[in-house]
């Protein structure tokens, strides 16, 4: 249940999935489909639902899910041709998380394999980016949320290792929250005055 409170897991479930209603739906015609003429949703109607609604309805065999746009045939053509240079977040920011949930629901072996292949192909690049270079990772815009989190985790641990090994002097800094608030308030004007007077500092030994 720890995933219950996870923000990304929550947002991944917001992805829309096209479904066909095997039964009608009383009073939800307009809500489910703007073009619907009647108050009730008729049987066999195809609508898009957010993923969080689907599992329970599917369990009762009330809807039949179809493949969402982000796992479309055309998407896989691109991903399989050049897995490392595809901006997955443009298809779906939670590409893998949502994919895992979706395949779990449908028991779709083929999709499962495709996802796994795509992830392994991309993972090596992520690892190199995290471990070997300290400069800004230039392909960040290609990553899905899950990959970004992995990259940052790798980065943080490398940095911690580096700090420990070369034991650079620790520097105490202002709290994040205070800094962010100051930025919001002062809007950049802050800081310029202090820089000017830096030359004539007094040094007081206490």
């Amino acid at each position: 249940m720890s995933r219950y409170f996870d923000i990304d897991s929550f947002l991944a479930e917001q992805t829309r999935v096209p479904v066909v209603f095997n039964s009608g739906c009383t009073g939800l015609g307009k809500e489910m489909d703007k073009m619907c003429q009647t108050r009730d949703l008729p049987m066999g109607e195809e609508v898009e639902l957010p993923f969080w609604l689907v599992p329970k309805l599917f369990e009762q065999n009330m809807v039949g899910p179809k493949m969402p746009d982000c796992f479309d045939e055309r998407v896989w053509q691109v991903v399989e041709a050049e897995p490392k240079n595809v901006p997955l977040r443009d298809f779906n920011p939670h590409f893998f998380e949502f994919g895992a949930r979706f395949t779990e629901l449908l028991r779709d072996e083929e999709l499962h394999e495709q996802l796994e292949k795509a992830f392994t192909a991309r993972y090596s690049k992520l690892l190199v980016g995290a471990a070997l270079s300290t400069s800004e990772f230039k392909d960040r815009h290609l990553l899905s949320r899950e990959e970004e989190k992995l990259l940052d985790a790798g980065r943080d641990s490398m940095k911690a290792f580096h700090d420990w090994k070369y034991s650079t002097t620790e520097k105490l800094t202002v709290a994040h929250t205070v800094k962010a608030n100051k930025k919001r308030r002062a809007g950049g004007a802050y800081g310029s005055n202090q820089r000017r007077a830096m030359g004539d500092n007094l040094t007081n030994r206490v």
Partner: protein
Amino acid sequence: MSNFGDKAATLVQDISQSEKGTIPPYNDELVRAVVDESNEHHRSILRLIGDIQEQGTSLDAAAPEDAAAILVHHQAVLRNKRALLVYLNERADRVRALRWEVGTALPEDLGESLSHSERGYFQQYSALVNRYQGRRGGVGINITLDPTPPKEHKVQVRVLQERGELVTRDGTVDLAKNTVHLLWRDEAQPLITEGVVEMVV
């Protein structure tokens, strides 16, 4: 295309997009809207059940389209509940982290970002940490100091904000703007995290 749960998603997105370690203003309006929406779903469910009973059918033998509608409303309520819990839980985490970052005093402009209950939560959590740190019944040491092992006992700091005189173990120090002082580390740390002085390396 259904709009159920969209407000809930906006609420979670709100906190998801904020910078790590900061607390965005409490979105009271949206929280209320999500709660109202859940109440609306609840009324819809009751209405549907009422309609079924009026027709004289038992709930077990209800038409599939009625069952589907009830299920949709019910799922929507659960989804909204989860959104509120995710939102509040994440904020509570950050409020607790605040105690370790800024100390016992909640900065004024930051306090505005918190809801009334969150401010109370901070005070009570802070009191708990204080009790743990206290001499009586506690460990008798300030555990929020020195998150990383220090090398020097003293640090050099430059004053960014006028703060008047500061009484230290070694006497008083005049914290005039742009002056540089050598302070005991434990005495300097609260001032650094508050942004009154900055460390000179």
